[in-house]
């Protein structure tokens, strides 16, 4: 007889590292020349870069906040998590606002992207697990890799990244 508000849980873990259950829509975007992808269902909105407010003392990975329709959302920089070069914002730079369950709370989080490409379908048979060796990135940050037209798309493990990089001691 609980009267809990039922909220549609956004579970990234549903799509296990072993592969995607079925073809899903993904939003692809560019981070310092590498292509990444997120489930399109997570994405609330893609914004132009807007004024940001730095939060002194915050972990470098989430060093700023911004106003998103009257709500104050943290801005995260996946480039720092993957050790990619952080370049100045350009005309193509965007903020991808996602709704993401983190520490049992639904959060709106803005992700900085150098460029946003398109929404595309990624099928399970085009994916493979991240190689344990031979990558300069932390393998636990990658859910899997997808191949498309000779290009490799990285599907990041956001839950893992937020847990590790959101901690104060991980300040870059």
């Amino acid at each position, binding site marked *: *007889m609980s*009267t809990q*508000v039922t909220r549609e849980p956004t579970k990234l873990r549903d799509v296990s590292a072993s592969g995607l259950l079925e073809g899903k829509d993904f939003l692809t975007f560019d981070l310092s020349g590498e292509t990444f992808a997120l489930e399109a269902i997570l994405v609330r909105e893609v914004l132009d870069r*807007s*004024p*940001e*407010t*730095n*939060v*002194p*003392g*915050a*972990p*470098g990975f*989430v*060093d*700023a*906040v*911004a*106003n998103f*329709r*009257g*709500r*104050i*959302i*943290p801005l*995260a920089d996946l480039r720092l998590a993957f050790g990619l070069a952080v370049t100045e914002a350009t005309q193509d730079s965007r903020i991808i606002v996602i709704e993401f369950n*983190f*520490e049992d*709370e639904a*959060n709106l*989080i803005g992700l900085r992207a150098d460029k946003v490409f398109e929404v595309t379908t990624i099928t399970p048979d085009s994916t493979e697990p991240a190689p344990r060796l031979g990558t300069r990135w932390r393998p636990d940050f990658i859910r899997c890799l997808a191949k498309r037209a000779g290009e490799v798309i990285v599907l990041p493990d956001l839950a893992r990244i*937020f847990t590790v990089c*959101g901690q*104060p001691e991980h*300040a*870059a």
Partner: protein
Amino acid sequence: MSEEDGIEVFRVESQELLEQIEQGLLDLEHKPGDAVLVASVFRALHTLKGSGAMFGMDDLADFVHHCETAFDRVRKGQAPATAALVTAVLNAMDFMRALAEQRKAPAEEGERLLAALHAAVGGAAAGAVEAGAVAAGAAQAAGTPAPVAGAARYRIRFGLASDVFVNGTRPLPMLDELRALGPCRVTAVTDNIPPLGALDPTACYLGWDVELRTEQPRDAIEDVFMFVRDDMTLKIDVIDDAVVAEPQTDAGAPPAAKAVAAEAADAKTVRSDATVRVPAVRLDELMDRVGELVIAQARLKQIAASSADLNLRSVAEEIEHLASELRDSMMSVRMVPVVQLFGRFRRLIHDLSAETGKEIALVTEGETTELDKTVIERLADPLVHLIRNAADHGLEPPAERLAAGKAARGTIILSARQTGAEVVISVCDDGRGVNRARVRAKAEENGLIAVGAPLSDPELLNLIFQPGFSTAATITNLSGRGVGMDVVKRTIEGLRGALELTSQPGDGSKVDLRIPLTLAIIDGLLVRVANARYVIPVSAVEECLELTPAQDLRSTGRSFLTIRDALVPFVRLRELFRTGTKPDLYQKIVVISTGTDRIGLVVDQILGDYQTVIKPLSTFHAQVGSFSGATILGDGSVALILDVAALTAQAAHHDSAPLRAAG
């Protein structure tokens, strides 16, 4: 309405009823035999039983039934409202709460409580002969008829409203109830039945004539119709006057009519005082929208100010008016009187009194003072703790009090008053006061202070709020469970409030909680550090000064400033936030205080007053510590709100080490 909704409605309603019962019982302790109170407790019990049964909570209905029966006897003057009975029902309150909330409640607990209840009632019955007279007197004074000594015959004629079935009222159980009062003969009055063609099958056309012989008073008959009295015709006549006549029958209007009229008046006042129950979440959403509107309006104002269009300007002005009015009414919706909070502590005092064996009187003042609903909720626990402390540590046992020339009964005063944008809630006792020597000994023992460290009196008292401090020599059931005054302090600071302890040895102690009226909006001072803007809550600001070049040069790192012969440390926010920019030529110092600690914050520019809608920071930034929230400025950008308590604590305890650089 789904079943879930129904249960939710019942849960809220039952809470209110239980509250009403509890308050009534507590009042009865002081005014035993007050017929109005007895009646109100009975009514609440009766309704609770009814709605409990309606929602299938048979355990609750059964249990409440016993309490109701006991009170029914009191109401009818067959038993006095003894202290034992009141206590027995009070003790059963928590059990009933558990049942109402469908929590697991051990059956044996219920049996034990019922046994106690029966014992109380039984004991009452034994003493009923002399006490009955008292109760009867009280009952008469309240306008209800005295118990009838013998059996009387009544003719009861009643008709129900034709749409009575729509509300789920069933006449048959009423007739059964009448039968239960005594032998009776029921005749249906069929005069009003229309011809078949005009008959509405869902309407009630029947009336009833009942001849009843009963020992019960007239009240009992009226009670049968308790829930339909507003909408029915009821006539009760005594046929056989061989027994004692009703005292009021020759005084004009028949008592039944009077009672009905009174009941109707009651119902009317309830209706005119109509309220709407709204889930708090919806209020929060509305508040958010209003906050956004205020922000959007500020932007409009900026645009209008830079435009030559007079029409735009006048619309912008109008919207500014409307937005500020809307915000004010929104705030008032969230405000509730503190009586909601204070009411809960009467029970606590009752229990504390029993547990400690001390006589305690609770005096409440300023119950109409209003506070934000969320603030009230969060104040409950700290206040429980403060009151427990006052009862356990503060007040002396009666013998000790008498020896000290005080009244045997200790007093705890709980008061609320509004001063400006703050509400001050005080818990004050007339006990022995804080034992300074013991506080010092304890603090030294726990390593909170160095042995023999020189401390001012306020500093010494403030040690009580340090984590890990507890003066209770023996850990009792009441206090000293590990959660100490530091938790109280933290909760209050979490509400952006402050607390202050004053104590006169021998005369008692007083804790003042200063709470902002609302959590949603604060008055802020907008300042600039490098190119970023920050908000400092105005309530914490003591004064603003200029940092003279001489003071600036004297030191880097940690610095002190002399303000009227007091040494105040100051922190350069530019360095703390590692902005890496050059300071402005004329820097300002904003002196902030938390009541005990004072520090100065060096900023580049003071931009002015700013009414601020507070928004929480995300999980990622919750641990940063220097900020209590953020707000959106007129131009749509975000400004962080400085956490005064955290900054002063940082400055006081660390060497103001710069925060890790961002980015």
